[in-house]
């Protein structure tokens, strides 16, 4: 009996030792925080702008976002001046399941301090369903946004007149990617109007159709968000055929999905996306658009040396810059670049875009300070500097364009800063989730993959409006 018991104690001890080893191994050596203790006043003149936040040594702010590798590292790097000057620690967590998981965390009472919300519609859901978790934007944040952002950006971060979330990054979606080299070699000009665009497409069919190339390539696959690039097409087109006022009413469903004005826009999108002569260069027929991931959708524009490309144009947002293979020269005279997706005539130049918004779920001073910092020009410039490969811009007017190194980011910043161009936020991101993250995606996918008729698609989306 005693021997049995002794053996048990040994077994317990051995298990315990193993467990402890595992735990300590998991703990890892924490890198000493740069300047976490007493380094803040090390004669660093740059810290002047950070004095307003006070001394936050030993405080931690948790950030939860949808931005994952490789785009997360520039974000983490951009917090360094804040961490060094205030002594606070920023703990960054990115998740591909962000949209679903954030709500689960709010429901469970384990909200992050700060979340980057990519859809104003989601912000509305949070304010309506979990009003006790989210806190209105801090005073410093509000002041920064008033000073450095246009009023419309502030409204995207507001719900029922209360300002919650400050704009962070921005992107321009009204872009058509093309190969400047190929356009030059073939003598193609950048189209200025919709008719030019169609004429160019026809010309490409005539020139290269016999070699199997098509003017357009596209991909709308994106896991369970499949279909969103197609919704962007329709949004861009509604802006062009019906205008900004109808667009705003469409978001609130005062203009219905099966309204003739929306139907006209969808028909125009179909002139390209469902035209078997125009798509899907190098990737297959019309339905292959649904099976191609959006990341792969534009790659046939690049041709191997000595070969002709299988595709010439790809409509996708500025952030598509990150998807070109390493070594691709993204510039006006390089391998690929983007031109503005033209309007019906050269005079109307609406812009479709998107962005993320910083919401706070705690009113601790360090959280308020960090939220204000993210809305400041200091952060926007730090982020631009820490993103040498491009693919990021902000609507912050304090952002120095010189800090943006990539030509496509410079172009995006110019378009975002141009007040003569009517800017509209991505409509599906503003609609209720049942439509904007549901039927709008799935029905546009069915429109492509199954050839469902325009009327059926629009009726089905309208029927699902909550």
């Amino acid at each position: 009996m005693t021997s049995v018991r002794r053996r048990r104690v040994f077994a317990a001890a051995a298990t315990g030792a193993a467990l402890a080893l595992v735990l300590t191994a998991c703990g890892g050596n924490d890198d000493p925080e740069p300047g976490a203790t007493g380094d803040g006043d090390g004669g660093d003149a740059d810290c002047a702008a950070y004095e307003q936040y006070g001394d936050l040594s030993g405080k931690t702010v948790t950030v939860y976002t949808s931005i994952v590798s490789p785009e997360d590292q520039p974000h983490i790097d951009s917090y360094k001046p804040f961490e060094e000057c205030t002594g606070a620690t920023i703990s960054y967590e990115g998740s591909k399941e962000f949209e679903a998981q954030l709500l689960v965390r709010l429901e469970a009472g384990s909200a992050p301090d700060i979340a980057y919300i990519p859809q104003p519609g989601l912000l509305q859901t949070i304010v309506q369903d979990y009003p006790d978790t989210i806190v209105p934007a801090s005073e410093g944040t509000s002041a920064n946004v008033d000073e450095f952002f246009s009023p419309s950006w502030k409204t995207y971060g507001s719900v029922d007149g209360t300002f919650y979330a400050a704009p962070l990054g921005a992107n321009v979606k009204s872009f058509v990617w093309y190969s400047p080299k190929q356009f030059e070699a073939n003598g193609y000009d950048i189209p200025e109007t919709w008719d030019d665009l169609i004429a160019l497409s026809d010309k490409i069919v005539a020139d290269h159709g016999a070699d199997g190339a098509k003017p357009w390539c596209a991909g709308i696959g994106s896991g369970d968000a499949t279909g969103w690039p197609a919704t962007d097409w329709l949004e861009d087109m509604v802006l062009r055929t019906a205008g900004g006022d109808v667009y705003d009413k469409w978001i609130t469903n005062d203009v219905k999905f099966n309204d003739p004005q929306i139907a006209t826009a969808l028909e125009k999108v179909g002139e390209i996306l469902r035209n078997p002569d125009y798509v899907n260069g190098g990737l297959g027929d019309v339905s292959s658009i649904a099976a191609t991931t959006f990341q792969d959708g534009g790659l046939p524009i690049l041709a191997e040396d000595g070969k002709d490309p299988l595709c010439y144009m790809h409509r996708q947002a500025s952030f598509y810059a990150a998807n070109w293979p390493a070594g691709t020269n993204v510039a006006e005279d390089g391998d690929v670049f983007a031109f503005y997706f033209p309007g019906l005539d050269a005079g109307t130049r609406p812009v479709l875009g998107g962005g993320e918004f910083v919401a706070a779920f705690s009113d601790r001073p360090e959280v308020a300070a960090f939220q204000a910092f993210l809305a400041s020009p200091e952060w926007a410039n730090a982020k631009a500097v820490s993103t040498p490969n491009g693919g990021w811009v902000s609507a912050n007017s304090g952002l120095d364009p010189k800090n943006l190194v990539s030509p496509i980011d410079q172009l995006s910043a110019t378009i975002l800063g141009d007040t003569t161009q009517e800017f509209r936020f991505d409509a599906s991101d503003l609609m209720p989730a049942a439509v904007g993250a549901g039927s709008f995606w799935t029905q546009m996918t069915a429109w492509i993959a199954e050839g469902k008729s325009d009327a059926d698609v629009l009726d089905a989306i309208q029927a699902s409006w909550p």
Partner: protein
Amino acid sequence: MDWLLHADTTGEKLVLMVVAVLMFVAVMGLILFATDRIRSLPPWVVGVIFVTPVVLALGFGLVYPAIETIKESFYDRSGAFVGLDNYVAAFTRDEFQVVLRNTAVWVVVVPLASTAIGLLYAVLVDRARFEKFAKTLIFLPMAISLVGASIIWKFVYAYRPVLEGVPAENQPNQIGLLNQMLVWFGLEPQQWLINSPANTYFLIVVMVWIQAGFAMTILAAAIRAIPTDIVEAARLDGLGGTRMFRYITVPSIRPALVVVITTIAMATLKVFDIVRTMTGGNFNTSVVSYEFYRQSFVQRNTGLGAALAVILFVLVIPIVVYNVRQMRRAEEIR
């Protein structure tokens, strides 16, 4: 004492390790000591001690959420009571009818196909020369996660067009195994995952690929366990080949067959990973378990999501009941 929570140096970590070991030994010692003491308690107290944690865990982790889910299924997303509206929507709306149809196809095809393939394989390789190797081969997919398997098969099904009138060197590279085979035979490559309703069957292949190994393992063991005297007696009576299979093998392993079919049927009802990874529920391939997630967490239709979860729950119940009754009957015979 800050180092207890944030051990930085190796020395601190070693001390921390010793502390952790001591704490673990203390707790385990206490438990072992207590179990020795338990023997002197009346049996009903022992029973209560052992049953309480299980009852609490089941109550808190299973019964309570189940009741909450059922309750939620009668409310809409704004929290208003809507009676059976969510269920009506789940059974009448076109898109959910497709979901229910697909679920039915899955739950019929996967268990039957996996079991049939597993059984056939088990019989064929039983006592064959390469038995171990052959069994490993079909058992290996079991070790791959459903998501991993889905990604593998996504590559198998990958589609690139064959362009007409274009020389071979300018053709896009076929990256999918299945379509490359078609091209070798001079056929047109197909979009396996897009064309409904066939695409559901191409997803089912993935599940069968995984579950056939499970069926084969259990059934092979059951076949081995058939008493040799029965087999010999049957053989002396002139039974052989397919009739041996029909009249001796299958009846002898019937309990194992039931377990395999019902287990696979339950796993199939819960299939989520394959649908999500391969099609995202698009192209008419969604199933109840995936649509429930989509409605609850992506579209925030919590009531409708809960209703779908309840439907799934109701669908599983008969299989579980049948399984339990079969096991009870098998025990009675024994």
